[in-house]
């Protein structure tokens, strides 16, 4: 017994002289990677559009090219040190090259943020002096925004639930129906909320015609249907099939089976998604207001055209407060649900 303990101690003393070592990737592949890195560096130098440079007294180097170059070389060195396979290193290099291409394609640069600061002066001044009284003066528009969100959430989520039941193969009458409704849901989801906003404002007339909030509600409903049908449908896909089979075996019809065995299982998830869409709706209804769907967003558009930045500032701050409050409220409720 004691000798075994002794043995264990001695082996513990020398860390891993006999441990298997990760095989080193072939030198050839890393030489090839080095060549790729060289090509990339040349590419960076040739395609750079940035005029920023780092100066070291006597000479200066272009800033963006050096950052990208250092990154590529660092990835290569780290890969060699950690004996990473050449494919992974090549992948990381490809990501860097793609980002370079994308960034230079749109002329991405942060320099206007400090170079054109003087132009932003009145805007920043306005934002730093919010006109608090304005929040209360447009209180009726706040009510419109919240009301739009409440109505749209209720209607959209109920329709979304029905579509989700139709879309999941678990609760759908036939696989054919399920495929069809799934495809329809994808189409509904592919149009963004602002797209629906523009569509319904064009159809019903915007705030000027008095139909702004109605157009906004319809846009939000479509937006909510897309989200809820997708999330709830996926929840239904993963329910426990046992109770569903048991209900079927007792002679229940499809509707009875869904009501008795599917809905109770997905209800907490569904409520949680409903609260989440309500949060999204408060935010989205502001954006919809900007395209003419009534509510606080409408106020922002009007104030923007008057260059009243201190009014907008007050609205923005109030909006952040409202969104945070709704966030917190729904978080509290969601915690209790499960």
């Amino acid at each position: 017994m004691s000798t075994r303990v002794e043995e264990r101690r001695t082996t513990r003393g020398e860390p891993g002289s006999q441990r298997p070592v990760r095989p080193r990737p072939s030198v050839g592949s890393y030489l090839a990677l080095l060549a790729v890195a060289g090509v990339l560096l040349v590419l960076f130098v040739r395609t750079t559009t940035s005029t920023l440079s780092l100066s070291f007294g006597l000479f200066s180097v272009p800033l963006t090219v050096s950052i990208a170059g250092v990154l590529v070389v660092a990835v290569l060195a780290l890969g060699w040190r950690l004996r990473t396979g050449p494919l992974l290193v090549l992948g990381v290099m490809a990501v860097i090259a793609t980002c370079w291409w994308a960034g230079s394609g749109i002329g991405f640069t942060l320099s206007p943020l400090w170079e054109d600061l003087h132009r932003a002066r009145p805007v920043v001044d306005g934002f730093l002096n919010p006109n608090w009284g304005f929040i209360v003066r447009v209180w009726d528009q706040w009510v419109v925004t919240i009301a739009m969100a409440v109505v749209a959430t209720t209607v959209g989520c109920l329709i979304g639930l029905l579509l989700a039941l139709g879309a999941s193969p678990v609760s759908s009458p036939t696989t054919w129906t399920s495929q069809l409704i799934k495809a329809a849901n994808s189409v509904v989801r592919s149009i963004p909320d602002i797209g629906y906003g523009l569509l319904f404002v064009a159809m019903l007339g915007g705030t000027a015609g008095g139909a702004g909030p109605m157009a906004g509600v319809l846009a939000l409903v479509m937006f909510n249907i897309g989200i809820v049908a997708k999330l709830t449908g996926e929840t239904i896909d993963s329910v426990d099939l046992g109770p569903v089979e048991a209900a079927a075996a007792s002679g229940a019809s499809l509707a009875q089976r869904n009501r008795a065995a599917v809905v109770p299982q997905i209800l907490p998830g569904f409520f949680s998604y409903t609260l989440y869409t309500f949060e999204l709706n408060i935010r989205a209804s502001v954006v919809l207001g900007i395209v003419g769907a009534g509510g606080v967003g409408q106020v922002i558009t009007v104030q923007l055209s008057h260059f009243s930045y201190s009014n907008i500032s007050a609205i923005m701050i109030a909006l952040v407060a409202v969104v945070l409050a709704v966030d917190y409220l729904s978080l509290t409720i969601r915690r209790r649900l499960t």
Partner: protein
Amino acid sequence: MTDSRPAMISFESVDVVYPGGVRGLADVDLRIDDGEFIVIVGLSGAGKSTLLRAVNGLVPYTSGTLTVGDEVVDPHSRRRLRRLRSRVGMIFQSFNLVSRISVLHNVLVGRSSQTPTWRSLLGWYRPEDREIAFQSLERVGIVEKAYVRASTLSGGQQQRVAIARALAQDPEVLLADEPVASLDPPTAHQVLQDLRRINRELGITTIVNLHHLDMARRYADRVIGMRGGRIVFDAPVEEADDAAVEEIYQRSLTADDVAGSVDLDRDGSDGGAPGAQDR
């Protein structure tokens, strides 16, 4: 087993071929009389579950004729399947209760076929259906748990709720697919005793799939052995001796096959907690 009475369930050269081409049942001929208590034994994959599920159409049979009562099972007509299933109760290895709703509402699912859809959707069942549900719960002895969430019950209690759900259908046939495989041996015996008692009291024809040979011998009227989708043994329980079962299993019996009785004796002598047997 007299031929003068009409058969409750009859299989006439029934085949089940699954969509993947796997053969679940092969040329099964079987006649089950009203009120029998039948236990089906066999290794995993022998076709026991397929046989049970063919009876209520959960698995559609592909050829032959399968009759329950005076009605031929038609796997392609949803309406006729629902009517058939309302007469055939089923319980499962994993109980298959909806864990988030009350015991009573789980049992009321068994009344679905007799309940208008709008009532089911609202969850507003008729008083007489609730009464039937309560009586079913009484029969398995857990009526006091009616308003408790199903998920808070123990495994044995959950399986009793599942039996109550099947009884609420007022079925002529009860199918039990490995009903005790998820339970510890003492609880398993209690559940089987319940099934046996209900079979005697109400005369419901009962078919049970079991793994443990000893439980089969203890409760069955008649034992059916299956292998490779075929019925290879069919006799009164007295004839199901070790040699017969070794023939069904195609190997000699192991301690595991007969685990049931050992555990029950243990439990009887030292008053429970047979932790070592809880595999």
